[in-house]
């Protein structure tokens, strides 16, 4: 069901007090995602003109923002903010595991770590695509969501390291071999390109543009989703929570209309910027 219609319906249902909302993402996670996609868009917008510096739009963009000096400044600024967010996230995970002794961080149904069920879900999903079996019943994080997470995680380390190696090349040259200075540019640009292509095509479609969520999955902005959506998208998690008697703990307030409108503006903007960058990337790549 398209999102617009669903929201309208939900608002009506809410008025009659029927719909219950459950928390999926904490505010910390939402802010992390906000910082992540803002800086990622910034990095992509300032990195692509460099990667395709021979294209017309790259030069026009560079001229428009005040030359490469400005581009480099914004690229480094976004990189520094994103690095900080990444480090806070890593610290947060280890605090939850080692200090708070929280369970399910590194293993179990709520963990981001892949398990056998993810492999079975992947195969089952393909079977369902082909009409050879039922739709897999997903837990808190589906396999493609875990892939998204680890892709970003790996990308952060790889792109981050290679980026800093270029930024502080004389320093890194003290312990890296000479050819590594050549390699970091290749790594940075290829991995950056992969991240851009992946996020602006695969992630956008899988998470936001597929018919189940079209045109945008609001949960990453509002943090909550309706009981109906919860049950349909992650039946295993829903049932587990019911079984463990923890479902009520996850109950949350319905999102305010300002929250939805704000989310839409931000989300659509991000998606549009991403799509434009994707088109530019593809035209430059194949042009």
């Amino acid at each position, binding site marked *: *069901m*398209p999102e*617009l*219609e669903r929201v309208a319906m939900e608002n009506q249902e809410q008025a009659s007090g029927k719909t219950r909302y459950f928390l999926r993402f904490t505010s910390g996670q939402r802010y992390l995602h906000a910082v992540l996609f803002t800086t990622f868009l910034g990095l992509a917008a300032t990195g692509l*003109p*460099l*990667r395709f*510096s*021979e294209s017309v739009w*790259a*030069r026009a963009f*560079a*001229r428009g923002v*005040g*030359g*490469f*000096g*400005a*581009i*480099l400044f914004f690229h480094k600024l976004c990189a520094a903010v994103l690095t900080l967010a990444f480090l806070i996230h890593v610290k947060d995970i280890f605090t939850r595991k080692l200090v708070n002794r929280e369970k399910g961080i590194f293993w179990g149904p709520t963990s981001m770590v892949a398990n056998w069920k993810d492999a079975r879900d992947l195969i089952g*999903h*393909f079977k*369902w*695509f*082909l*009409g050879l079996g039922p739709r897999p019943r997903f837990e808190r994080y589906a396999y*493609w969501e875990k892939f998204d997470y680890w*892709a970003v995680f790996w990308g952060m380390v790889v792109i981050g390291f290679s980026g800093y190696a*270029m930024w502080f*090349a*004389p*320093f890194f*040259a*003290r312990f*890296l*071999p*000479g*050819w*590594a*200075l*050549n*390699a970091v*540019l*290749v*790594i940075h640009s*290829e*991995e950056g*390109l*992969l991240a851009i*292509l*992946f996020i602006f*095509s*695969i992630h956008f*479609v*899988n998470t936001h543009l*597929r*018919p*189940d969520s079209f045109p945008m999955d609001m949960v990453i902005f509002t943090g909550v989703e309706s009981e109906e959506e919860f049950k349909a998208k992650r039946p295993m998690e829903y049932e587990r929570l019911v079984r463990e008697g923890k479902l009520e703990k996850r109950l949350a307030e319905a999102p305010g209309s300002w929250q939805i409108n704000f989310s839409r503006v931000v989300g659509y903007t991000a998606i549009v910027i991403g799509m434009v960058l994707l088109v530019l990337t593809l035209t430059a790549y194949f042009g």
Partner: protein
Amino acid sequence: MQWLSFPEGENGTMEEASRTQASSTARLLRRATGVLGHALRGSRDELGLVESAANWLWRRVRVPVRTGMLGAGLAAFLLAAAPGKARAATDCLACHADKSMTDASGHSIAVDGQKFSASIHGSLQCNSCHTDIKGYPHPDHPAPVQCRTCHVDEATALTGSVHADGKEHPCTSCHGDPHAIFPKTDARSAVYPLNVPRTCGNCHSNDGMAKKHGLPSVYPSYMDSIHGYALTEEGLLVAANCQSCHGSHNILSHKDPSSPTYKTNIPKTCGNCHAKIDTEYEAGIHGKALASGDLKAPVCTDCHTAHAILQPTEAAFRMQSTPICGSCHSDKFTTYRDTFHSQLGLLGGYVETARCWDCHRAHDVLPATDPHSSISKANLVTTCGHCHAGANASFVQYEPHANSRDLKLNPGLYLVRLFMNLLLISVLTFFVIHTIMWLIRSRYEQVKKNGANGGNHA
């Protein structure tokens, strides 16, 4: 006085008139004897002899001429020997001063007497040049004036030049109005250094001969160049104008090995002013290659162009310089374009990134094996250090021309690139297939659930 009828300045005092008269007399004397000798013998050597004799005579009589009428008398005596009677300019101007006067085909045949008398030829009689006019009435079509009669060296040089077959009068095309010719040191002269580009530009621009003869329109390029700027904006007399490089009367095609613009002569031609750079260039690998007869080696104009020469520190030149080197060193250009130096460099507004000559030097380019080379192992830290503060021995192991597509040359880099590409291709291929299948299946479910049209918003 009347018999010599020297042009008299309106405000000239008697003394000035006398001085003008004296020097004019001498010139006249030499010209007259020149004309005489030429007419009588036609042989250049003998003509020279006659001219020398006239010069000698002038040197003898110079002092008396300044003070008295002796010189004038002598000149009169010699002039009497010249063929034809000297016609007074005033006589001719009686008709030709009329500004509206034209010949049968409508060309102006008016002469501005005042301008003429101020010009370098002002002391000459009309029939010194228009030798076939002996009296009035004169022929309807007087013979073309032969400047060669006096200016024999220039005329000879012109005969061998690219301008030899000019249909226009070869002299006045450049020197301008024949009745208002000034020495090249005079700002009124068409060949005064500051006026030369405009004079040549009369033909060598798109509006002129260039278009007609398929010549490159060089005038606009020159005017925008550093030389053009120095000359026209700053008024630097020493700035190179057209004839500084091409010569004046003996202009030869750049294909002629004796032309100053022939490839092998260009370093010396430019070196006339840019002496230090010429020395550096000749010590460099390009200069040595040229000296050994390699005509593919670049000379000044290959990088700086011939006419549209830019200040090398200018952004425009920095932006255009690398492809010029790349037109010969294509392999190095390809690998350069893979680097951050190139990627940054291509974006406008950031022209500081290393271009070929920032590392290799511009003129004294030397191979890395030469200890004096800027890219020799010992000098790399200094060379890279110009931009990269803190460059050290391990930093300069960076290869500015590494080839990530060459397994043998750069195995590490090759494998890294291969791995990254495989990762990119496999991840995207897998997920594109996955996503497309998912979309089709989801849409199918949606249509099935909501009816044939997929629902109101499908």
